[in-house]
């Protein structure tokens, strides 16, 4: 897991250069609570993400990280509190939900590419059908992003023919094709072999450098150090601590954070 921290640590932390570029709020969560049946999985979550911010969320397994970011594009419903994305509050209004999903890209741990479509079709599906973009244009955009993730030559293959790292890069490109304002990543590298992790992280660092708003659940501490504005530590469904990466890693405040960091770094 920390193979990569070697690779990325060679670069100087880019955080200073990556100043938050705007004061707009991209995502705001106010007192969000969520239950699975009787189980209280998110507790009083308060979080404000500015446009251009890059947030890394970490924490032990089962602490509610995935649930949190899945609430942001309403893959899960919250029961209490308020979530506002890009100025739109998430309620039961289906139209709002669609609008929000169009502006929020998500990359999953298991890629979830569509196996029956070629790479190019995977990337153009949403632009054509959601954004009503002409096919030509959608393909141009798709090729642009495939270039960006460095696999233009795979455009006409099927997902089954690609390695895990390549698949995850396609998943990122696919999200980018919708030109989202916010990107969510849910442990994008944890299903990958070490060499492939690097490929994917490089792409993500690139994105970060361009100022994309990112909320990323990951345990790649090298990545967190290098690109995050803020690191959030969750446990038991709550935000236990949040801080800028340097302070977070060098000077954790909470006992739980200290324990967690001592396990994850060696």
């Amino acid at each position, binding site marked *: 897991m920390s193979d990569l921290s070697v690779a990325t640590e060679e670069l100087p932390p880019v955080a200073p250069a990556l100043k938050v570029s705007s004061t707009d709020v991209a995502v705001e969560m106010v007192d969000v609570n969520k239950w699975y049946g009787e189980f209280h999985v998110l507790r009083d979550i308060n979080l404000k993400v500015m446009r251009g911010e890059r947030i890394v969320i970490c924490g032990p397994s089962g602490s509610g990280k995935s649930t949190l970011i899945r609430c942001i594009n309403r893959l899960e419903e919250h029961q209490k509190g308020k979530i506002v994305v890009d100025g739109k509050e998430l309620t039961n209004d289906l139209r709002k939900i669609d609008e929000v999903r169009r502006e929020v890209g998500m990359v999953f741990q298991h890629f979830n590419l569509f196996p029956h479509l070629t790479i190019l079709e995977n990337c153009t599906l949403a632009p054509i059908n959601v954004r009503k973009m002409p096919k030509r244009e959608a393909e141009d955009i798709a090729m642009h992003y495939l270039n960006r993730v460095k696999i233009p030559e795979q455009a006409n293959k099927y997902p089954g023919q690609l390695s895990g790292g390549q698949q995850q890069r396609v998943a990122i490109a696919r999200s980018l094709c919708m030109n989202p304002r916010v990107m969510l990543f849910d442990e994008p590298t944890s299903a990958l072999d070490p060499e492939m992790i690097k490929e994917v992280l490089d792409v993500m660092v690139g994105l970060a450098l361009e100022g994309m708003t990112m909320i990323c659940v990951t345990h790649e501490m090298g990545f967190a150090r290098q690109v995050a504005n803020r690191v959030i530590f969750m446990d038991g*469904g709550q935000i236990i*601590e949040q801080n800028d990466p340097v302070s977070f890693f060098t000077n954790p405040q909470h006992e739980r954070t200290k324990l967690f960091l001592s396990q994850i770094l060696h």
Partner: protein
Amino acid sequence: MNAPSQTFVSNALIPAQAPPANSVGINGWMRKNLFSTPLNSVMTVVLLVFIVWAVTPFIRFTLIDATWTGTDRQACLRSTGACWAYVKAYLPQFIYGRYPIGERWRVDLVFWMLVIGMIPMLIPRAPFKRLNAIFLLGIFPVAAFILLTGGHYQFAGRLIPNSVMPPSPLRFAIEFGILSAVILFFVGLFAWLSGKPVAGSGNVVGIILGCVAAVLALCGIDFGLVPVETANWGGLLVTLVVAITGMIASLPLGILLALGRRSEMPVVKLASTIFIEVWRGVPLITVLFMASVMLPLFLPDGVTFDKLLRALIGVALFNAAYMAETIRGGLQAIPRGQYEGAKALGLGYWQMMRMIILPQSLKIVIPGIVGSFISLFKDTTLVIIIGLYDFLGQIQASANDAKWASPVTGLTGYIFAAMVFWAFCFSMSRYAAFTERRLDRGRR
């Protein structure tokens, strides 16, 4: 950047709270499962109405308006509900058909033997599986055969006619000798041709001789039972005989066909494939027709088969083809390494199959096998088409009896038949599901 939120350390842990009232409990459950969206609410209401609309008449017919007692059709002629009195009066015939009343204890005995043999077989934890299987597959069929037909078969008489030599222990000995020699010859030939000489496996020879002798002797003995020809069997008895014999006979046949289809010998492979595909490609009732109309044409003059036996042959062959495909699936799931491991230890083809491959693949396909048993069980109703009175046939025939015929008699009969078949098939499918889950756990 206004970064008031930059640094944050929670100082108090938030305790778990109870979820909002409208998301748990009966309310939450209904909200989530019945009325989550407007569309869902509409569907719930519509379905509720539908259920009431569909189920009420059924309950009225089968329970509220039903006639429970009576001695003949007068009781039901004006009824708008089921005529259970008729079912009660005919129940024995539904079960035994025309089996003579004084002899019905024999059927009961066979039934209880089956139940006693099956129950411990079906409970995974019960001990003595091997003995149990010997009982079910070896002793039970012979006993059932003798009890149901009455035994005292002079099969042996087919070899040496009475006119040449009257029945005597000597004739039995001679005929037994001839028969076992023939069987042994074929077993030996088959074994040699397929890879492993039987020489040395003295106990195999012994077992074969013993079994042949025992079966012949038992079937030949006069137990003093009145013979009951199969034409008089009927009802559930015929259904169960056809189903169970079909199941038991189709399994080994299916295994042979499956092995044949995977054989490396082109002729064997081709023959098995054609056999399987042809049987699977045609409807069962044409097979039954063939068995009942054409089989007599195929046989030499004077040789006849009992009608039930003909249906059994048809059903068994038909089902064997389906069974073969199920088992082939299981064989294909066994990794190559198992074959190689067995070969490297020096096991021969049949040893390998018997001890390594088949036990594993049969276990995998148990759910599939039970599935085809269920369809076989349902298909037994088709024997009606060739004039055998199975459970459904018997019910239909009786519904038309002048003594009980009434507007509701037929429907009552169908409902009763449906309930009985459903109970059998549903419990089988539940059992299959249970085994599947158990095996899954075992594999994990």
